């Protein structure tokens, strides 16, 4: 084998942490990771949040985010140990030999500068190309990445192009200086599923055509399987398993890798509809104040007691707006909401306390849905006081019951949200919603900010609680795997309309309309060659590419 382009040996990375109530101190977050990368090859780094994958990616550019410091080991790139290089040489490396594509292109482009200026900046400042050459190369890359109007798109500002387009522009930015290595840090995670595969394909082709090597960082094993030659599975800053993609996907050795490959083990059989739905959405048409376009057109759906209706769609499809209408935050222009046998007031101010109690909500970002200065006990106890007037020992007893139901237990009662993990926070939010003894809970993307294994645990818990409490869920999500796992009924939303609606089996069985087909076929599958297959078989383009 030839000399590798990247040779990482026993890389150790530390960070300063500031835990509440303790003195700031240093901890180690990556404990000696080693790998090789040959020119033109792609290594996938995979793991949950906190596994250290982004940190390792940035360390290959001798860069530590915030208080992160590289504390030991070697990172050889092109035969030079970058950790021992002078700052001037490191600067030549960054943006010249190694470039970076971040998760959110929308945040990573400077809003005050034109796209072209930013795409060519590194190549020009590093003296690799003249301004003219760099611009010509950028336009070629724009075309190669499938961007519309490649000759002029560079004259736009970042806010003038869509999220998927901007992510491709970021890839062009990384490829423009003809680097030897590109670090892709979750480049498609923030995109809609139908847009994701187009960007993924564009990235894959660009890697192949330019012969660049890549570190591809993601939490999604199915995605990384499509683009990588090798995969390294990381957990808590340690290598769990490292090998060729075929071996990791088809013959994983470690238990943790096996869990990652077989995630979504939930089996849930569809329940038959009951005669009396708990929620009936009738002919809802709605628009936001001061706008001229309806974002919901004549929406009709039913939710039955103790069942789950999944509302699925891409960003902008109107699924969150539907939740706002049901909760009374956005009074509709037409139509009405029937709930538990009565017609709800269209706006929040007109609803009774009983209406509020019976219709609870759980949010995507558990962090910001809780007061950071209140303990778990206070957070869960509040609805008990507010709706049932509970006090003292009685309240405490009920809080502990709820904590047991969400599998956390009494010891959590005095903890603050900052002391909990993401999954634990979401469990506390679930307990808070359950405390009101609701007939129905709206779950708005409750698992999309969580790691797959943690999300799996939350979904299992929700199904378990549904059996005990007979509560109905309106489950808003863009993730079809989640939909498959937990729903009884499904409504597919597209451009403010219900595109397809019915029982789970019916909705997920052919024949499909073109949009549902696109949506279903876009969900990454954990097998090699899936990406090429699905691109070849597509009937329509995604709207937000």
């Amino acid at each position, binding site marked *: 084998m030839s000399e590798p382009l990247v040779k990482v040996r026993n890389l150790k990375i530390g960070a300063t942490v500031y835990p509440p109530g303790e003195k700031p101190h240093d901890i180690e977050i990556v404990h000696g990771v080693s790998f090789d990368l040959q020119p033109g090859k792609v290594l996938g780094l995979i793991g949950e949040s906190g596994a250290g994958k982004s940190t390792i990616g*940035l360390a290959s*550019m001798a*860069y530590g*985010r915030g208080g992160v410091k590289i504390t030991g080991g070697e990172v050889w790139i092109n035969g030079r140990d970058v950790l021992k290089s002078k700052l001037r040489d*490191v*600067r*030549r*490396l*960054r*943006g*010249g030999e190694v*470039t*970076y594509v*971040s998760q*959110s292109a929308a*945040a*990573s*482009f*400077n*809003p*005050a*500068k034109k796209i072209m200026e*930013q795409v060519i*900046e*590194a190549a020009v*400042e*590093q003296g690799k190309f003249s301004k003219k050459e760099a611009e010509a190369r950028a336009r070629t890359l724009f075309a190669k990445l499938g961007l519309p109007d490649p000759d002029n798109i560079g004259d*736009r*500002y970042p*806010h*003038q192009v869509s999220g998927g387009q901007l992510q491709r522009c970021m890839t062009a*930015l990384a490829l423009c200086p003809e680097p030897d290595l590109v670090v892709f840090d979750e480049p498609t995670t923030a995109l809609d599923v139908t847009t994701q595969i187009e960007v993924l394909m564009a990235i894959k082709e660009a890697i192949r055509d330019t012969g660049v090597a890549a570190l591809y960082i993601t939490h999604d094993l199915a995605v990384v399987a499509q683009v990588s030659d090798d995969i390294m599975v990381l957990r808590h800053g340690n290598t769990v398993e490292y090998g060729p993609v075929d071996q990791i996907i088809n013959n994983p050795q470690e238990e943790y890798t096996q869990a990652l490959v077989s995630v979504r083990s939930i089996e849930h059989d569809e329940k038959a509809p009951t005669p009396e739905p708990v929620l009936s959405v009738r002919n809802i048409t709605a628009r936001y104040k001061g706008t001229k376009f309806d974002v919901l057109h004549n929406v009709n759906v039913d939710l039955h007691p103790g069942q789950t209706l999944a509302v699925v769609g891409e960003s902008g499809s109107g699924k969150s707006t539907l939740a706002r209408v049901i909760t009374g935050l956005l009074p509709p222009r037409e139509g009405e909401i029937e709930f538990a046998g009565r017609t709800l007031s269209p706006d929040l101010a007109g609803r009774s306390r009983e209406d509020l109690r019976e219709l609870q909500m759980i949010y995507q970002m558990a962090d910001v849905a809780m007061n950071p200065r209140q303990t778990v006990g206070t957070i869960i106890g509040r609805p008990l006081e507010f709706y049932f007037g509970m006090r003292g020992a009685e309240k405490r007893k009920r809080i502990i019951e709820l904590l047991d139901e969400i599998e956390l237990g009494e010891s959590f009662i005095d903890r603050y949200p900052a002391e909990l993990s993401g999954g634990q926070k979401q469990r506390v939010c679930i307990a808070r919603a359950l405390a009101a003894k609701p007939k129905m809970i709206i779950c708005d993307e409750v698992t999309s900010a969580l790691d797959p294994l943690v999300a799996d645990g939350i979904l299992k818990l929700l199904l378990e609680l549904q059996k005990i409490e007979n509560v109905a869920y309106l489950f808003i999500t863009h993730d079809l795997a989640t939909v498959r796992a937990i729903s009884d009924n499904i409504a597919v939303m597209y451009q403010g309309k219900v595109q397809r609606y019915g029982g789970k089996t019916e909705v997920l069985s052919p024949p499909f309309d073109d949009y549902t087909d696109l949506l279903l076929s876009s969900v990454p599958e954990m097998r090699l060659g899936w990406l090429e297959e699905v691109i070849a078989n597509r009937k329509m383009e995604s709207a937000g590419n």
Partner: protein
Amino acid sequence: MHPVVKLVSQRLALGLLLLLAASALIFLGTLMLPGDVAQSILGQSATPEALANLREELGLNRPALVRYFDWLFGALQGDLGTALTNGQDIAESIGKRLGNTLFLAFWAAVISVPLAIFLGLLAVRYRDRWPDKLISAVTLASISIPEFLIGYLLIYFVAVQMGWFSSVAMINDSMSLLDKLNAIALPVAVLTLVVLAHMMRMTRAAILNVMQSAYIETAELKGLSTFHVIARHAFPNAIAPIVNVVMLNLAYLVVGVVVIEVVFVYPGMGQYLVDHVAKRDVPVVQACGLIFAAVYILLNMIADIVAILSNPRLRHPK
């Protein structure tokens, strides 16, 4: 209509409305003062007949609203009335002094604004290290010392002890630009020291805020030098808050320099205003008030407009 045109014309209309409101307040304020112009001219010992005659002559018996609009339309045409104490045309005397004040403010701004922004950038570049701490300490010290004290200290050391500059800043039309600059060197230095800290601190804070953004990381990962990242990537996104503070300080340079003008016996608006307040010359006070209000509103309006123009989302809508 392009959103920028719409927003800017809204600001302009709002500015005019504010100016109108300010003029009404100024007029109302002078109405509420005890005594009136006739009383001030004739003094305490005037007979009622003489007062009545003078009021008739000056038109003070007409309703307040009529007098207000009279005054307002006069001001719009550049007629600010005549000073009571010396009978001179106010517009004419103010014109020259306003020119002097603007001359002083202009040179103070030319030096202090770029200096403050540069020091702000430097403080960010070396944040929490000694250059940052030194810059902060010096500018904060200079803003904390009363400006007249700085003025007298400079006069004592630089003018009296070392004799580099004159201690009084008298200028007139016959002087060359260089002579004039030499004359105003000390007041410009004092004003610079007074306004530097605000602008420097705001530049530093605004840029540090922007430095948290993901696009700054992108720029750093392009291998750009730290100063390049700060000046070319962070600064353009911090313009709006910086311009606001710069304009407030510019307004201060025009309307707040009364003390400095008195200390250095500079023939500007401030000195003129102080003289006539002492003499209860109401029309002059009204005129000065109106001009100060106009300067203040104009500069703040410019700050708003620059903030609008610096936002690419407004300049280039989807």
